[in-house]
């Protein structure tokens, strides 16, 4: 029995919608190339990539979590806390610890901290069966608070060259951290599409009962996904500190909304089971291009906020529309 004509049309429409982010991205770039002065030159492109790294890495984490039909709101705070903690450990500043610790040792430490926070998130979600939204909202608030506490309200600045190197050293005009982001995307794309772990993530998001019936260890996977999210967020945070030469209490403020906007517009469904890192990458780039353009046009940062919000709304409506087509 073949699928009906309307179902076939639906399929085509959904196929387009799933890749609409690339269409919008290319359209946007084309339009900006011709209408925005200063947009289409290598330095600006490098700038765009530069600014996509942090949201980009956080988006990988959020994508994995969303596919399992959960949500991680704490990614921003884990990144912020990691940035602040890294600055506190390594900076040559009276506000810092005075340890002037090795930056890469600090990276290891914040990754462990991120993993532990992910473990805590996982525990409340798996064992206590509390909704992921509520759990990660709490950790979001707590760790932002802890970060502010650590800064004592002041900024911590003054990082060593070796800490900042990954953001300063450029290869073909592009900072090393961009290459790191790309490598992470390639690695995690592979994990999601070509490993049993990735397949099980889609199964849990698609039909958790079926996952249980066929012996998939759902609890273990949820823990792993949240721990992964914590670790990636920590890496992003460390990089943010490297880029900003330190950290203030408000670091990474608002990143959560950009991450959600990027993943949703990149095709990840808010109700689980669907998503691709290729789409997410496009979503991240799109948001970076928009920010960049608004910057060049010297649009007020408040307007930028409104526009970003509109994009989140657009992405959510798109997601709902896709579901309606089923």
């Amino acid at each position: 029995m073949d699928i009906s004509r309307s179902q076939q049309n639906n399929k085509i429409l959904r196929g387009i919608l799933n890749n609409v982010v690339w269409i919008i991205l290319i359209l946007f770039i084309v339009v900006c190339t011709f209408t925005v002065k200063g947009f289409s030159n290598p330095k600006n492109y490098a700038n765009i990539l530069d600014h996509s790294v942090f949201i980009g890495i956080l988006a990988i984490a959020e994508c994995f979590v969303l596919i399992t039909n959960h949500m991680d709101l704490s990614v921003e705070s884990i990144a912020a806390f990691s940035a602040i903690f890294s600055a506190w450990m390594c900076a040559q500043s009276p506000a810092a610890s005075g340890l002037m610790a090795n930056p890469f040792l600090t990276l290891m430490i914040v990754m462990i901290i991120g993993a532990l926070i992910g473990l805590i998130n996982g525990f409340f979600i798996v064992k206590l069966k509390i909704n992921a939204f509520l759990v990660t909202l709490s950790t979001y608030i707590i760790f932002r608070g802890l970060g502010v506490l650590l800064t004592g309200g002041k900024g911590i600045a003054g990082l060593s060259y070796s800490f900042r190197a990954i953001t300063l050293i450029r290869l073909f005009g592009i900072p090393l951290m961009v290459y790191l982001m790309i490598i992470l995307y390639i690695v995690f794309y592979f994990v999601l599409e070509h490993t049993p772990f990735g397949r099980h993530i889609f199964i849990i998001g698609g039909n958790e009962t079926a996952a249980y019936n066929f012996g998939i260890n759902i609890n273990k996977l949820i823990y792993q996904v949240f721990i992964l999210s914590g670790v990636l967020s920590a890496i992003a945070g460390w990089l943010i500190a490297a880029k900003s030469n330190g950290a203030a209490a408000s670091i990474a403020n608002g990143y959560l909304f950009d991450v959600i906007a990027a993943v949703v517009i990149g095709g990840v469904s808010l109700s689980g089971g669907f998503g691709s890192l290729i789409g997410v990458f496009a979503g991240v780039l799109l948001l970076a291009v928009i920010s960049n353009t608004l910057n060049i046009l010297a649009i007020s940062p408040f307007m930028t906020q409104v526009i970003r919000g509109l994009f989140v709304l657009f992405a959510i409506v798109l997601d709902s529309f896709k579901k309606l087509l089923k």
Partner: protein
Amino acid sequence: MSIGYSDNKIEILKLVDIEKNYGSVQALKNINCEIYKNEIVGLVGDNGAGKTTLIKIIAGNISPSAGKLFLNGKEITFRSPMEAKKYGIETVYQDLSLCENLDSAANLFIGREIYKKFLGINILQKREMEKRALQIMSKIGINVPSMKEKVEYLSGGQRQSVALGRFVEWGENLILLDEPTAALGVQETKKVLDLVLKVRKEKLVSMILISHNLQQIFEIVDRIIVLRHGEIAGIKIKNETNPDEIVSLITGADLINKPVVGL
């Protein structure tokens, strides 16, 4: 076409005094029965009689509140459906347990994905799974356009065949089928029943089939277990009974093992 019931029957599964309570609700009580090798047993009863609960206990999804299970003579306790699978018990669930967001090949191999280790990482062998999936589906005979088609775009009959494909490939000791033809048309139902008989003959497995369709039951089973209000109302050999008798057992004849209240 049933097998005669002689004494040299190998017992595959034995349920002794199985009970299941949900708080004050007694879903199952006094369940005592055996399933023999290579037989098809029909499990019938009205809605709420406890058929799915009983199947879920055998499949390992839920544990009994009391009683024992014996598989091939050994007492066993299933803590999860996966443990039941290790003993060769395969289940076709009423809701099919399909992931709409994945394709047929992925659905067939849920929990049993084929992978190879490469540099310490497990890598999915998608092409091999697709190939095996095509083989499995061709055995079933219901045409699925492509193994790469996401299940949400398949018809009811095609989805059913994906769910059936699992037991055709992996059913070993005992296969549990919970209303496998509920959503199917006449032709597709016939194909499923033919498949059930074919697999029974080829693999010498035992099967428990839940169905509301008595005609279907009488067509292929060897014995019939009737549940009523959570208890066994009767166990009959198909050739020694008729649909009317079964209906009266389902609806309200006397229980054969009504406990004698001793005085």
